């Protein structure tokens, strides 16, 4: 009797040990959106992919740190980031490998590395989402990110605290564009005027859904989720005036990790994930990611950059260099 029990246990232990994967992908894009793409890659190539996903609290940073700490003995072959700045950080640390993929042609230069170390694809735009039924006639949400802190807007809106994820990248980009001191002063004004700094983009979106607030600064994928859940939310692309900077677009990015154990498979994955087919899939998925290439098939409610809105030009290398310092600045200001 006892012996049979141990046999069961041994079988369970053996069952727990799977075979070696053909490709290890560290993936910071939400698992629900990325997993179908990874499965499709497996179907296309017959390769077995082992994916490690990031967790929300440490969004991106967890996997980036893991790559840094595993530098001597890399486990990841490819890093699929849900934003761009931390990928460039890895490149600056010498932890990526160059790969000139034919597939990246057509992607605007702003969103790919000249040396082939990283490539952007399928992006989210930083938008103002609002409920029209919360405004009286003649009123409306701020039309520029810079005007969000003005008293008439600030007390009715929210943004995620820029400590992680796309909001950190966005605000580091603003610091690059406008200078550190000006941005910190801007954040302080927001605090003084009652602008709420929420936990994340989904959180501030939820508050607008529940009519606690009239508007929020968020990502297009969160606004899409709100609409899908039956909330009457409208999206506004900020800073579209002739002299304004344009809307910040933050793409996914992919790079091959230095010392990748499955280099050739990693290249195939980069070819696949930056292809128009995947951009189209990401656009059609729940997150409604915006294709960077012109002419990629996408549902009609997915906006087209340059056509539906004007995209801000950002020096992503500078953003990557400043990212950690600005995070500490923001934490000092906003966390008690």
């Amino acid at each position, binding site marked *: 009797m006892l012996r049979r029990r141990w046999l069961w246990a041994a079988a369970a232990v053996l069952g727990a040990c799977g075979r070696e994967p053909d490709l290890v992908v560290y993936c910071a894009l939400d698992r629900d959106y990325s997993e179908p793409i990874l499965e499709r890659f497996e179907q296309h190539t017959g390769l077995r992919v082992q994916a490690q996903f990031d967790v*929300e609290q440490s969004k991106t940073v967890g996997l980036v740190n*893991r790559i840094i700490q595993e530098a001597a*003995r890399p486990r990841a072959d490819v890093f699929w980031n849900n934003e761009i700045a931390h990928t460039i950080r890895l490149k600056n640390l010498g932890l990526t490998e160059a790969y000139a993929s034919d597939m990246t042609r057509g992607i605007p230069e702003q969103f790919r590395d000249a040396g082939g170390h990283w490539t952007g694809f399928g992006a989210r735009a930083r938008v103002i989402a609002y409920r029209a039924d919360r405004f009286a006639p003649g009123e409306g949400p701020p039309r520029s990110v810079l005007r969000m802190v003005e008293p008439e807007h600030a007390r009715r809106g*929210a943004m995620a605290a820029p400590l992680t994820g796309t909001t950190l990248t966005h605000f580091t980009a603003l610091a690059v564009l406008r200078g550190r001191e000006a941005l910190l002063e801007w954040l302080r004004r927001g605090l003084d005027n009652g602008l709420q700094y*929420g936990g994340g983009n989904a959180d501030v979106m939820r508050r607008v859904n529940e009519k606690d607030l009239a508007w929020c600064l968020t990502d297009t994928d969160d606004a899409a989720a709100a609409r899908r859940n039956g909330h009457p939310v409208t999206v506004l692309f900020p800073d579209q005036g002739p002299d304004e900077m344009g809307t910040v677009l933050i793409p996914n990015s992919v790079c091959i990790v230095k010392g990748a154990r499955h280099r050739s498979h990693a290249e195939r994955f980069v070819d696949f994930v930056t292809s128009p087919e995947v951009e189209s899939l990401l656009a059609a998925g729940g997150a409604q990611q915006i294709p960077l290439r012109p002419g990629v098939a996408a549902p009609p409610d997915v906006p087209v950059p340059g056509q539906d809105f004007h995209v801000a030009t950002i020096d992503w290398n500078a953003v990557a260099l400043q990212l950690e310092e600005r995070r500490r600045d923001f934490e000092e200001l906003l966390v*008690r």
Partner: protein
Amino acid sequence: MSGPRSLLRAAWPWWLLVVSLTAAASWLPLLPTLGALFSADGWNALRDPRLGALFLRTLWLSALASGIAMGLGVPYALLATRTNVPGAALFALLMPLPLLLPPLLIAQAWHGLTGMDGQWAAVLCLGLAGAPLPALLTAHALARQAAGAHEAALLCGGPRFAAAEMLRSAWPAALLGGVLAFLFAAADFSVPDYMSFLAEEKFFVYSFEIFNRSREADFRGGAAAAAPLVLVIALLLYASLHWRDAWSGAERAAARPAPRLRVPAGRWLLLTAALAGAALLLLLPLGRILYDTGMAGPAATEAWLQRSARAFSDALARGRGDLLRSLQTGALAGALVLLLAPWWAAQLLRLGRRRQRLLFLLLALPLLAPGVGFGMGAIVVYNRDLFGGFYDSALLPPLLMAGRWLPLAVFLLAERLQRVPANQEEAAQLAGAGYRLRLFRYRLGVQRPAWWLAAALVAVFAVREIDLAILLPAANQSAAVRYYMALHAQRDNFVAAFGLVMALVLFLPLMLEAAWRGARARDER
């Protein structure tokens, strides 16, 4: 006969295996944390005023959570086990269930119910999540009160005096439960993280610092930061164990169970109080989450039922793989505990009180460290060439989960083994049975259900563990992590449905055990 068979009969090879496995599961991952106690850096870190303030905040927030846990748990235990409240058996059955839920699920539900956020909300949710600990220990102590002691009190001073004496007899156990609730609250990362995430006014607790250190420095720094917390909680646990031992005296199971307090005029009042307790601890949160499965905005085109059904089918479709992996991890952790717990439980009972407490503390160390600290320690220790593919394999998470929750299993089993007369084992010894046989066949004897229950509990805790799983690469694809991630994104229906599916999976072993126990009691009658 000599050779392998005689080796198996001897105790020492088994002890070698048990100690090695326990060291690998429990103590090795703590080396980076405990090492910091012996380095100046570890202590200097606390001189940083910000860190010191965080440490103090964690202590008092946890103390408040523990107070709430005791304030709810002790009266609930009293109501369910020692009063004539209608449906007492059902209330007693509900008592452990909130403990099986991830505290994050409770936090999600209460945020949904009341919109609460911030540090006070975290305190309340951790208090509610921890309430079963004092409740269960109090209920256990109340059940062991000798009927005569209760009746003597009734004769001397009436029901009020008898109730006071009843509480006095359970107080050391209740306090130990309070300390455990404190421990769970201080070590928790996910609830303060969630409540801070939601709040306009952000706050930090100590476990955040441990987590954040891994961003700026490396995991070694994070693990080391956990050291002062481990030390404080260890001292507290030792003191409460000491106090319990000193106060409960030569406690033994009562031959005749003490009667329930009869409160004829107040039965409905008692029922209201018990219902309120059950609602606060379990029914309201679960009800809210059920509502969330079909909740939608005003422009939604589907009815609640349709959305809810879709959310459940979505949860099963997308989360099935994670649930299966979590169950595999839980089963393996439980299997490991089946092997380890009896040895340690039996060893505890061989020792004097002081050594017993010290050994228990040694076994409890992984539970005293915040899950994130323990996880980082494990990464520091196991993420090296020496261990090859083990670090990435599906075997590491169950090993660590078993180590982290082993103390609970040992605690439960030791308490049950204490009831087995020593002479049963001695008779087997005289008959020539080896140590292993004596332990597993005669010592465990009629306590086999407790043995399996202890393993099932560890399996359940392994499935619900979030903090450790979010750090450990091999445990990332688990139900708890999927839930954690989905909760922070904006997928309310899915989150709620997946949370409920998880709750059902977690409740199942305990429900089956209760049903089996009920059936056995009926057969015996």
